[in-house]
């Protein structure tokens, strides 16, 4: 649906990225690119390097070799302006990581206020806007612990959106949730995709990846083992992906 985007530099590009933890090579020459408005889903087994690859984009991991360019920032260089990078990139974690001592509104307004120096009245409006986007307007003055897991994750997404990022990263954002709470979070992400947000997500929800992703990256042993449109999930070319999607991971 977003295939007709103009073709300048991709929002995110990784070229031959290598990363080791000690003697363990977690990323072994990973390359992929994400165009504006594109939704990329990274799938693979635990330990395949998919979360590490995602975290490298926002420089929560430093790469050993290779080139990463995100919204024009050379993330692989040591002198990258981290705060400028992270204003362009929103990230949502598996464990929500809302600030427990702040209300939902304060969670959302903190960064726009402190980083972008927006006025208090402006940030309150912004908080209401992004909370409406995730369907949580009535929780604006609640504390995180008063929310369910699904609501907390939606609030965390709203918090990221308030910084108006150019790309959103989702790191297994539904893995900590009960199945019945997963749906409400996925619905929010789906709506974001429909609104044209550029997104990279690491996910175990194969059905979701299939329905939402423009492209799939299947990682295996630190490499991009197979990549292509969502249809590769139903007709995989490599035996590894076939085995991966065949192990019961493929829900409708």
């Amino acid at each position, binding site marked *: 649906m977003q295939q007709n985007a103009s073709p300048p530099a991709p929002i995110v590009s990784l070229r031959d990225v290598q990363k080791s933890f000690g003697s363990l090579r977690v990323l072994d020459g990973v390359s992929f690119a994400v165009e504006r408005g594109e939704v990329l889903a990274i799938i693979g087994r635990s330990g395949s390097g998919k979360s590490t690859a995602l975290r490298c984009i926002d420089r929560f991991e430093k790469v050993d070799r290779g080139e990463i360019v995100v919204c024009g920032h050379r993330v692989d260089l040591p002198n990258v302006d981290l705060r400028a990078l992270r204003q362009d990139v929103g990230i949502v974690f598996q464990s929500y990581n809302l600030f427990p001592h702040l209300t939902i509104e304060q969670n959302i307004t903190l960064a726009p206020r402190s980083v972008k120096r927006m006025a208090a009245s402006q940030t309150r409006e912004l908080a209401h806007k992004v909370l409406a986007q995730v369907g949580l307007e009535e929780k604006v003055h609640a504390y995180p612990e008063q929310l369910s897991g699904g609501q907390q994750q939606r609030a*965390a997404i709203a918090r990221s959106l308030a910084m108006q990022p150019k790309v959103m990263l989702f790191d297994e954002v539904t893995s900590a949730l009960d199945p019945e709470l997963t749906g409400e979070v996925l619905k929010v992400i789906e709506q974001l995709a429909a609104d044209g947000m550029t997104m990279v997500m690491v996910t175990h929800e194969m059905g979701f990846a299939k329905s939402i992703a423009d492209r799939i990256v299947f990682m295996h042993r630190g490499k991009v083992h197979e990549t292509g449109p969502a249809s590769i999930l139903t007709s995989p070319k490599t035996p590894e992906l076939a085995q991966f999607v065949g192990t019961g991971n493929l829900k409708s």
Partner: protein
Amino acid sequence: MGIELDFPAVLERWPNFLGGAVLTLELALFATVLGALLGTLAAVGRGTHSALIARACKVYVEAIRNTPLLVQIFLVYFGLASIGLKLSAFTVAVAALTINVGAYTAEIMRAGFEAIPRGQIEAAEGLALSRVQIYWHIILLPAVERVYPALTSQFVLLMLASSICSQISAEELTAVANYIQSDTYRAFETYIIVAVIYIILSLVMRAGFWGLGLVLFPRRRRLGTAL
């Protein structure tokens, strides 16, 4: 033979007791505020990337925690005098108590900092907050909240320990008691009264910290969680 207690003979000196009690509270208040600042800075310093600063903070904390308060007070008292600094006994007492409680505060705050989940800091970094902003908005208050009972106990202990400042003739409660009992020859009565006053001061401080906690941690107040 029975004990004969004559409280009125001692109690008629109540203005002196009151003056001593007020000075003790002032000592405690100044040293608590300054010590909390110093200790927090030392705790931050121990966590910095600069090995020199971290080492210096560690030496400070260990030096203080492994020497008696009285010796520290004398060191400050005679040390400042020997370099020609003539300060009042009160100022010296505040300085010594601040240095002392700062070290204990540093250890308590360090535990508080370490209890902040890594994910909190990553989330803040992901929102482009600066290091100072992260310390201020994300780490400091939740860390204080976690160690608040330990911290406030330490400050009450400090108030009690300030009795030792009578040794450099700071006119706090114990010093007042010392000369009242030598005036009246009613040592037992005097120190019973002083003990009761210390208990009252402790209760006052605890009540103060409880009230401060309500202001500092609005979430606790809202959700009714006990400290």
